[in-house]
């Protein structure tokens, strides 16, 4: 076992029988996959039954920690939740940060993997005394936040809780898992947990984890902390990601009304004040008032900006939830968007998938494909009603939309698949592919589906270093590079919002990992690790039925060019996308169909 950072074992719990075992994790695996998203991929490949139903008992759900958890390094209190996604049928890994990460790891495990299905709705407890299941009958239907509060008061000090809301219990395919008000949001992990009849997992620290070179890690932590106060993170500290709203609208990168446009006429209202206040972004804005700022555990950046409308509830507003429940659904009232966001939190559903699926349904209603004349773009009451029907699965429409836009469009038909806003079944985040061509590629080829966290290729589009409307080789290189960086950051784990402070990222990350573990990792090795992790996700997906057609974008984006205010036309043709995907495959060492050869697979050490 390495000199620090790990316990060298995973806890595997079978909730059908309530039994558990400890599984050793070989050094080579830890070094090759690090932790978080990478180690989670390896675990899922090992433990998942190929072809299993993501909502069946044979599909494992893994909470995976990382070597940096528990160190004083800023933004490191994070973990990954990894499973086969009920939306995509492929790998999904959601990251979240909270005290749960620290307490979970200090149960003495690098990962907690859950299998089976509990006989009744239960809470899984893990601490130094082992594992046990207790009934969750009294928690049925509660929000994740209320579940957290109740359990902590019942269990006493030191317990940390990850829980699902009512939507997870009802199998909404994009339900979330929440803890300390943060969410493992994307891909439907809450539904997987609900399918295991688990309302919550509570963990309590019982062990200490060693650090190989405590002095070096402390020095690095101080240095990173200093850097985290600098200009590279100013946006996150001072404004939060909500500042993107006005900027993206200005550059036609803000998808609205289900990708029918890349600007939104209600942006100024939503982001506060008239256009004359364009830059004032998000601070004490008209209607929406910033009342607090906070941060995840162990973070010195603090990007969470909490808003309130009138005397309403305090809600965390980030670009993605405001985009998905605002412009995407045509809603411009700040209060309504915050209320919808709060409703998603209460139900325990992913705001991006909820907003995307509802926006698609609004367009279907407009075209007469769905009989719900009340479901109109821009109607805040309709948005809230749709969210409630989805969370409760209380109506046929609610049940249909609880399946996500891909499945719903297959049911509705009538050509509605062409404008269903998803890749591989995962709804699209707020980045317009037609005006961000590097991002278009990143979204198309990503293992998780349409996702802005595993592929940060928009960075290249927004950098000015390439022509964002003219995708080509430079965009492919950028997409590969950002995907590689994300693979390492998501496995170490460090928050992406810290990425701008690193000047030589792979080398600096290697030094951090070496200080914690005692390994002599180099930047070069980490680059190989990144490629291994990206490849392993693809290999997992192939095993679960991935086809070349899955690396693609919704037809609408390829067939409906956008006219920009500058007079230019932004088009992303199928030919251009195909060419970029071809280059991406070549750069990743895949065949033209996107598959690796036998040797490449063997090198992954998965078997």
């Amino acid at each position, binding site marked *: 076992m390495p000199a620090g950072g790990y316990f060298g074992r995973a806890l595997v719990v079978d909730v059908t029988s309530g039994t558990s075992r400890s599984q050793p994790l070989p050094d080579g695996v830890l070094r090759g996959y690090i932790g978080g998203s990478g180690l989670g991929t390896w675990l899922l490949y090992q433990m998942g039954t190929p072809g299993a139903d993501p909502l069946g008992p044979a599909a494992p759900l893994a909470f995976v920690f990382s070597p940096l958890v528990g160190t004083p390094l800023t933004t490191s209190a994070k973990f990954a939740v990894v499973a086969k996604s009920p939306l995509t049928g492929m790998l999904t890994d959601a990251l979240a940060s909270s005290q749960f990460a620290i307490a979970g790891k200090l149960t003495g495990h690098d990962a907690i993997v859950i299998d089976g299905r509990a006989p009744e709705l239960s809470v899984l407890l893990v601490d130094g005394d082992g594992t046990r299941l207790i009934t969750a009958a009294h928690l049925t239907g509660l929000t994740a936040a209320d579940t957290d509060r109740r359990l902590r008061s019942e269990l006493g000090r030191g317990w940390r809780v990850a829980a699902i809301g009512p939507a997870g219990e009802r199998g909404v395919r994009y339900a979330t898992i929440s803890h300390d008000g943060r969410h493992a949001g994307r891909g439907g992990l809450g539904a997987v947990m609900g399918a295991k009849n688990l309302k919550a997992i509570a963990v309590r620290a019982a062990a200490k984890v060693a650090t190989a070179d405590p002095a070096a890690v402390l020095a690095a932590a101080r240095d990173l902390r200093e850097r985290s106060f600098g*200009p*590279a993170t*100013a*946006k996150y500290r*001072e*404004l939060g*990601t909500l*500042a*993107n709203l*006005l*900027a*993206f609208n*200005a*550059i*036609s990168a803000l998808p609205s009304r289900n990708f029918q446009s890349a600007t939104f006429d209600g942006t100024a209202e939503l982001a506060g004040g008239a*256009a*004359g*206040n*364009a*830059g*004032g*972004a998000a601070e004490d804005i008209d209607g929406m008032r910033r009342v607090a700022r906070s941060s995840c555990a162990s973070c010195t950046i603090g990007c969470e900006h909490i808003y309130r409308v009138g005397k309403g509830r305090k809600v965390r507003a*980030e*670009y*993605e939830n405001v985009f998905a429940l605002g412009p995407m659904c045509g809603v411009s009232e700040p209060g309504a968007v915050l209320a919808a966001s709060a409703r998603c939190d209460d139900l325990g559903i992913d705001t991006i998938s909820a907003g995307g699926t509802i926006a698609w349904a609004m367009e279907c209603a407009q075209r007469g494909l769905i009989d719900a004349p009340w479901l109109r773009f821009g109607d805040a009451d309709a948005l809230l009603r749709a969210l409630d029907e989805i969370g409760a699965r209380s109506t046929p429409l609610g049940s249909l939309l609880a399946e996500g836009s891909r499945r719903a469009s297959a049911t509705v038909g009538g050509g509605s698949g062409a404008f269903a806003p998803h890749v591989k079944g995962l709804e699209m*985040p707020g*980045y317009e592919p037609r005006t961000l061509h590097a991002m278009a590629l990143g979204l198309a080829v990503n293992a998780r589906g349409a996702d*802005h*966290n595993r592929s*940060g290729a*928009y*960075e290249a*589009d*927004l*950098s*000015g*270093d390439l*022509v*964002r*409307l*003219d995708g080509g080789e430079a965009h492919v290189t950028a997409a590969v590079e950002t995907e590689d960086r994300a693979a390492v950051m998501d496995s170490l784990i460090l928050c*992406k919002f810290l990425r*701008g402070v690193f000047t030589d990222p792979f080398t600096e990350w290697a030094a951090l990992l070496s200080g914690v573990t005692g390994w002599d990792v180099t930047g070069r090795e980490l680059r190989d690790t990144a490629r291994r992790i990206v490849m392993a996700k693809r290999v997992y997906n192939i095993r679960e039925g991935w086809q070349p057609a899955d690396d693609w974008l919704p037809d609408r984006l390829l067939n409906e060019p956008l006219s*920009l*205010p*500058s*007079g*230019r036309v932004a088009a992303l043709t199928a030919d251009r996308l195909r060419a970029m995907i071809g280059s991406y495959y070549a750069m990743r060492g895949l065949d033209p169909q996107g598959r690796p050869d036998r040797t490449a697979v063997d090198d992954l050490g998965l078997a």
Partner: protein
Amino acid sequence: MLAGGQSSRMGRPKSGLEWHGSTLLRRTAGIMARVTSGPVVVVRAPGQGLPELPEGVLVADDPREGRGPLQGIAAGLAALSGRAEIAFVASTDMPFLHPAFIRRVLGVLAQSEGTDVALPVARGYKQPLAAGYRVWLAEAAERLVKEDRLRPAFLFEESRVRTLDDAALKQDPVLAALDPDLDSVLNVNTPGDYAAARARPAPEVTVQLFGTVAKGGASGGPHLVRAATVGAAADAVAVVFDRHVTAALNGDQITRDRMTPLAAGDTVFFLSADAGG
């Protein structure tokens, strides 16, 4: 862009003339790059030194020196063959060339199937060096040069030319609003022309600031300022245009290049470089 002319009346190469902290060549190339989706080709005399050019600009050589504009047109169009169907040909010395002018001329050419050349007749003169050409005319132009028939008029004789007078050009409301006197075709030939052009105020542009950029500098805007380059626009609103800031021109291409030229009516958005989630 033809950069190889004699500049005899100017007394020094026009392409290197200073223009609001940049050069005339850099400006014209930047304006062309903003409008077209294909490459910009600068044609120079054999061995001619050029000032710094924006990234992505191609350089072609005139095979022989002093053969006049038709040879430059031939060399430029030849360099584009296989890469574009139509091209805008400009000389270096048009400091007020407006993107809307290029867009208008190319727009007419693209939409007139039976036309080989879209030839502005602006401010009373034919403007062969501010005109649109079909790229395949390269062959005919080369032949004419070989035959020593060195004036563009010879090429027009054997092409289908559509002339655009002032009124036709200004049918485009954007051009009419932003360049009402068609200053786009004004060229500077003498030190006097140059001094007079240089004495004009920089174009009026709108600047808006977003995110942390707004917090660091002036308020978000919009601010009306006079600036001939993106860098000057940043200075005008006290934005430090460093690696943490990018500029989006008219909401379109994003740049970090201070020398990106601006024209009347442009809007510049300054954004945090780390825009995105």
